[in-house]
C-alpha cells in the first residue's frame, strides 16, 4: 500500500535536491570546520555561505544567525538566554496559551526559577487580542514570545503589530516561527522581530538542524559550553551536512514560494469545501484567512480522533489529531481548548496538512476515505445515537 502523507506540519519529506547537496558533507568533505587545513576550510566556507543564504532570505546579517539542532533548541536558547541576560531589568515574560511546548515548558521552567509569566489567551479564531497583550505589559516586562504560525490550527498571528508594540515599550520580541519559515514570506526587519526560531524539517530539509536569529545588540547567554563555535554561543562541532541541507531547503522554498502556496492552498480549500459538503456535524477550527497555506483542522463531532487516525492509517493515510489519546497526555490539545472547544469536540479533531508533494488524486482519496470512516465510527458512537434521537424528538 502506498503511503499518502498529509502530515506536513509534523514534518516534511526531505527534498531530493537537498539530499544531493548534503551528501558530499557526509562523505568526502568531512573536514572539521575549525581545522586550519584546506579540508577544514572548505567545511568552514560552506557553513558561512549557508549562513549568508539564510540571512539573505530573512533579511538580516549573517552574524545574526546561529545554527542549532532545531526549533526546540532555538526556542529554549532564545527565551532562557534573553531572560537570564535581562534579569536586572525585569523578570516578566508574556507569551500565549497556544504556544508549542518548546515555549510553554520553557516558560514554566522560568516561573519555577522566579520569573513571572503571563499567558495571554486567543480569540475563537486562534488569534491573540492585541489589546490584551498591551494590558499585560508591566514595567518589568523584558520579553514577549508569541508564535508566528500555530502548529495545530495554522493560525498566523499579527507579528508586525506585536513587534511594534514590543518596540514601543522597549521589550524584546521573540517568535517561534518554526511552522512559518519556508511557508510564508518573512522579513525580520519589516516585521519588527528581534529573535526567531526556525527548523529545517518543516520545509523539506533534514531533521536535527535549525537556526536562531537574534538581532545584533540583544544579549543572550551562551547555551552550550565548550569550544568557540557559533560566535562562542554554541559549542560543538557544527552539523555541516545539516547546515548545508537547511540552507538548500530554504533556498528552494523561497525560489517558488508563490507557485507552491497557490497549489497547496487550492488543494486545502478543495478538501475543506468537500468535507463541508459531504460530512455533516463538523467544525472547522482556526481562521480561514490568516492561516498557513496547507493547514486544515476539522473536528468531526461524536467520534474520537485516535480511532479516526487508526482507520486512516489502515488506508495508508498519515494525518494527526488533537485528541488526548494521541497527544500522549490526558487532556486534548491545549490549543483546541484555548479556542474554546469543549473536550468532546476537541477529541474528534483531525489535522490534515498538505504539502508540495500532494496531488488532487490523493486529496480525493482522503475525502472518500473520511466519508466512509466518519460514517462507520458514528454508527458505533453512543454520542451520535443520542444526538440523532434528540434531533428526532
Amino acid at each position, binding site marked *: 500500500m502506498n503511503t499518502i502523507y498529509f502530515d506536513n506540519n509534523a514534518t516534511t519529506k526531505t527534498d531530493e535536491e537537498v539530499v544531493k547537496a548534503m551528501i558530499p558533507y557526509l562523505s568526502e568533505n568531512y573536514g572539521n570546520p575549525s581545522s586550519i587545513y584546506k579540508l577544514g576550510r572548505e567545511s568552514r566556507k560552506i557553513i558561512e555561505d549557508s549562513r549568508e543564504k539564510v540571512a539573505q532570505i530573512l533579511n538580516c546579517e549573517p552574524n545574526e544567525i546561529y545554527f542549532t539542532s532545531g526549533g526546540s533548541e532555538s526556542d529554549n536558547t532564545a527565551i532562557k538566554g534573553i531572560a537570564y541576560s535581562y534579569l536586572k531589568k525585569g523578570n516578566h515574560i508574556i507569551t500565549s496559551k497556544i504556544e508549542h511546548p518548546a515555549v510553554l515548558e520553557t516558560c514554566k521552567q522560568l516561573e519555577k526559577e522566579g520569573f513571572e509569566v503571563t499567558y495571554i489567551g486567543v480569540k475563537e479564531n486562534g488569534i491573540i487580542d492585541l489589546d490584551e497583550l498591551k494590558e499585560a505589559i508591566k514595567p518589568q516586562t523584558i520579553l514577549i514570545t508569541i508564535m508566528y504560525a500555530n502548529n495545530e490550527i495554522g493560525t498566523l498571528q499579527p507579528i508586525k503589530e506585536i513587534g511594534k508594540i514590543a518596540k514601543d515599550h522597549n521589550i524584546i520580541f521573540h517568535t517561534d516561527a518554526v511552522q512559518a519559515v519556508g511557508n510564508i514570506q518573512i522579513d525580520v526587519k519589516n516585521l519588527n522581530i528581534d529573535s526567531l526560531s526556525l527548523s529545517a524539517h518543516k520545509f523539506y530539509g533534514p531533521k536535527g538542524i535549525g537556526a536562531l536569529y537574534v538581532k545584533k545588540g540583544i544579549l543572550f547567554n551562551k547555551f552550550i559550553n565548550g569550544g568557540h563555535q557559533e560566535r562562542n554561543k554554541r559549542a560543538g562541532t557544527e552539523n555541516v551536512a545539516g547546515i548545508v541541507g537547511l540552507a538548500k531547503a530554504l533556498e528552494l522554498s523561497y525560489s517558488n514560494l508563490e507557485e507552491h502556496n497557490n497549489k497547496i492552498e487550492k488543494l486545502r480549500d478543495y478538501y475543506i469545501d468537500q468535507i463541508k459538503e459531504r460530512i455533516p456535524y463538523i467544525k472547522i477550527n482556526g481562521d480561514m484567512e490568516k492561516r498557513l497555506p496547507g493547514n486544515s483542522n476539522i473536528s468531526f463531532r461524536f467520534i474520537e480522533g*485516535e480511532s479516526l487516525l487508526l482507520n486512516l492509517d489502515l488506508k495508508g493515510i498519515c494525518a494527526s489529531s488533537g485528541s488526548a489519546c494521541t497527544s500522549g497526555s490526558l487532556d486534548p490539545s491545549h490549543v483546541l481548548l484555548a479556542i474554546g472547544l469543549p473536550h468532546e469536540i476537541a477529541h474528534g479533531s483531525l489535522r490534515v496538512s498538505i504539502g508540495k508533494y500532494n496531488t488532487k488524486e490523493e486529496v480525493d482519496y482522503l475525502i472518500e476515505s473520511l466519508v466512509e470512516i466518519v460514517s462507520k465510527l458514528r454508527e458505533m458512537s453512543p454520542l451520535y445515537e443520542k444526538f440523532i434521537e434528540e434531533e428526532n424528538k
Partner: protein
Amino acid sequence: MEYSKKVVDHYTNPRNVGKIEKASGIGKVGNPVCGDIMKMFIKVENNIIVDVKFKTFGCGAAIATSSISTEMIKGKTLEEALKLKNTDVVDSLGGLPPVKLHCSVLAEEAIHEAIADYYRKEGKLTEQEIKEKCGLKEHHCESCGI
C-alpha cells in the same frame, strides 16, 4: 505506541456493533470529557446472555476492548460474565500499551452495569444486593481524573 495484531483486528472489524431493541439490560459508562463512552446492550434468557451489542465513542483500544468483551460474555451465564476481569480482556487482546489500560476497565464496568440494569428491571433483588452482586462502584478513572 504499538497495538497488538488482535487489537488492530478488533478495531478494524469490531464484532457485535449496534444496539438491541428491547434489551434486557443496558450499561453505559465513561465520559465524553475523557474521550471514552461505552454502551453495552445484553439480551438475557434463562440466566444466559444470548445476545450482546455495543456502541463506543473512543480510541482504538476502547473499541477493541468493547468488541472482544462482547465475544467473551456471549453465551455465558450472568455469574460467569460478572467474573470477567479487565485483565482477562487485556490478555485476550495480546496486551495493551500501559496508557490504554484504563480502556479495558471501562469494558468490565459496562458489562457489570448492563447486568445490574437487568437485575433492576427484573425486580427480584434490592439495590444493595445488586450493588454487591455486580460489584458496582463509582467510576473513578485516574487517567481522566473523573
